[in-house]
C-alpha cells in the first residue's frame, strides 16, 4: 500500500539539474527522512510534490491518483501539507488567525475553525501566544506556528522542511518530541533535516540525496553504513557523537 509515490522526477533550472530521476514511495503513517548536503535538491523535491513548481519529467501520485499537474491549493486539499524552510507566517495576522487559514479548508464556519485552530495551537504548545501577531513570535515559535498551520488542514501527508534549522540547540529536543506527537496523530511524515542526530532519532526510513539524485534509500542503520552516503555527506560533516 502506497500513499505517495514519486516516479522519475526531474527538474532543471537553466543548465542546472536540481532533481534527476528521483523515485521513492511513502506508505500511510510512515516517517521518512530526506537527507543530503546543501544543494542536493531537497527543497526542490518538496516544491515538485506540492505543485509549487512543475517537473520537467516524472510523476507524483497520491493514493494512485496523478497529482503532478495540480495546483498547490488542490494538492493541499487532497491532504498534503507542508512547512517552508524559509518560514512564511502571515505576519500581520495573529497566531490564531494564521492557523485558522488551515482549519478553514475543512469548514466554512469561522467559529468552528477558531476552535480547531485553538486546539492545533495547543498541540504545538503555542496556546498562550494565540493572540500575538506572527511577526512578534520568536523563530522557534514561528516553526511551531507553521506546524500548527499545516496540521490544521488535517493532512494525510505532512512535509516538514528543516524543522530544527535555525533554532538554538536547547529548543531541538522539544521540536523532536513535537514531530513525534504529530506523527502519532496518524499522518505520514516526510522530514528534510540537516541535523543527522535528529534524523537518526526520528526517521523509520531515510532517503539520501546528492546533487539531485537518490543515492540511498533504506533503514537509518543501513544509511549510516552506505558507502556513497558516507562519501557524500557523513564523511565531511558528521562526527559520531
Amino acid at each position, binding site marked *: 500500500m502506497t500513499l505517495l509515490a514519486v516516479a522519475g522526477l526531474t527538474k532543471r533550472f537553466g543548465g542546472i539539474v536540481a532533481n534527476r530521476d528521483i523515485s521513492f514511495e511513502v506508505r500511510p503513517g510512515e516517517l521518512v527522512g530526506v537527507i543530503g548536503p546543501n544543494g542536493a535538491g531537497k527543497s526542490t523535491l518538496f516544491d515538485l510534490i506540492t505543485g509549487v513548481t512543475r517537473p520537467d519529467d516524472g510523476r507524483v501520485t497520491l493514493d494512485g491518483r496523478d497529482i503532478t499537474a495540480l495546483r498547490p491549493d488542490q494538492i*493541499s*486539499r487532497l491532504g498534503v501539507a507542508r512547512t*517552508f524552510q524559509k518560514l512564511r507566517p502571515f505576519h500581520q495576522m495573529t497566531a490564531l488567525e494564521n492557523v485558522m487559514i488551515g482549519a478553514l479548508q475543512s469548514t466554512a464556519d469561522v467559529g468552528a475553525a477558531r476552535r480547531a485552530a485553538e486546539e492545533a495551537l495547543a498541540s504545538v504548545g503555542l496556546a498562550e501566544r494565540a493572540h500575538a501577531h506572527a511577526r512578534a513570535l520568536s523563530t522557534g515559535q514561528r516553526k511551531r506556528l507553521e506546524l500548527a498551520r499545516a496540521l490544521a488542514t488535517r493532512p494525510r501527508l505532512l512535509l516538514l522542511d528543516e524543522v530544527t534549522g535555525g533554532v538554538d540547540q536547547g529548543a531541538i529536543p522539544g521540536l523532536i518530541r513535537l514531530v513525534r506527537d504529530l506523527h502519532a496523530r496518524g499522518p505520514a511524515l516526510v522530514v528534510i533535516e540537516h541535523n543527522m542526530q535528529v534524523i537518526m532519532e526520528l526517521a523509520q526510513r531515510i532517503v539520501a540525496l546528492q546533487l539531485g539524485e537518490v543515492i540511498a534509500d533504506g533503514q537509518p542503520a543501513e544509511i549510516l553504513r552506505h558507502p556513497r552516503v558516507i562519501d557524500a555527506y557523513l564523511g565531511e560533516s558528521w562526527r559520531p557523537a
Partner: protein
Amino acid sequence: MAAAGPLRPFLARAVPLLLLGAVAAFPLVFTKPFPRHLMIMIFLYGALATAWNILAGYCGQISLGHAVFFGIGAYTSTLLIREAALSPWLGMLAGAAIAVVGSQLIGYPVFRLRGHYFAIATIAVGEIIQALVINWDWAGGARGLFVPIKRPDSFVNFQFHESKAVYYFIALGLLLLALGVTRWIEGSRRGYFFRAIREDQEAAASLGVHVAREKHWAIAVSAALTALGGTFYAQYVFFIDPESVFPLSLSILICLVAVLGGVGTLWGPLVGAAVLVPLSEGTRVWLGGGGKALDLLIYGALIVLIAVFQPGGLVGLAGRFRRT
C-alpha cells in the same frame, strides 16, 4: 481613555448609534446646499475607498485603475436612459453587473502580477479603457454625455433638483452598504483567505487557498460597489465624460483616501474621506478655484508622511495612542 468595566461595551454600542443618529439628523439641521454637498462627497468617497479597500486593503491587490469601474457605472446607467429610457436604479444594477464582468476579464491578466507590477498593470488597464471611451462616438466620445433633466423630482428617475437631502440619504445608503459588505467579508471565511493572500500568497496556497479564485471574488465585489458610486455620481452631476469618470487621477484619489485613513481596516477609508474631502472642498472655497492644487499638495505630503511613519493610517495612529 480607560473606560471602566461595564462602561466600555456600553460605549462601543452607544457611540455608533449616536453617530448614526447625528448623521441622519444632519440634513434637518443643515439646510444649506454646501454642508449637505460636503457630506454627500464624504459618503461617496468613503464608499468608493471602502470598496477599493476590499481588494487592496484586505486582499492586498493594490489597484490603481478603479476609475474603470466607476466609469462603467456612470456610463451604463446614462446610456441606458438614452437608449431604453430605463430607470437609473435599474441602470445602477446593470452597471454593477457589467463592472463585475469587466473585473473578471481584467483580473485574468493582471492577477498574474504581484505588488508594484500589478499596480502598474492596473494603471495601464485604466488608460486603455479611458482611451477607448474617448474614441467611442456612440458613447459620446470625448464630449461626454448629459443626463437628460426630468422634472418634477421623482424617485424612479433618480433626479432630485429641489433639495440635496435625498441625495444625502442615497449616498449614505451606498456608504453603509459598502461598510456592511466589508464587515461581512471581514468576519467570513473569505475575509480570512483574502488577508492570507495579502500576507503571502504561496503560503496561502500551500494551505489550500484557491488564490486566483479569491482574488477574482475580491475584485468582483470591489468593482460592483465602485460602479454603484459611478451611477450615483452621474445622477448627481448630470454630466459625465471620460475626463471626469475614467481618469487616473480619480483612481489615485480613491486610494489616497483609503491610505490616509487606514488600509485593511473597516473604518479607515471613511475616516480618510472625512479628512480629505473637507480639506479639498475647503481649500477650493478658501482660495477660489481648484487651479492652485493646494489641497493636493497637502494630500501628497500627508500620504508620504503616513507611508513613512504610520502605514496603518490615521486609524492605526489612533490605535497606537489608545494602547499607550
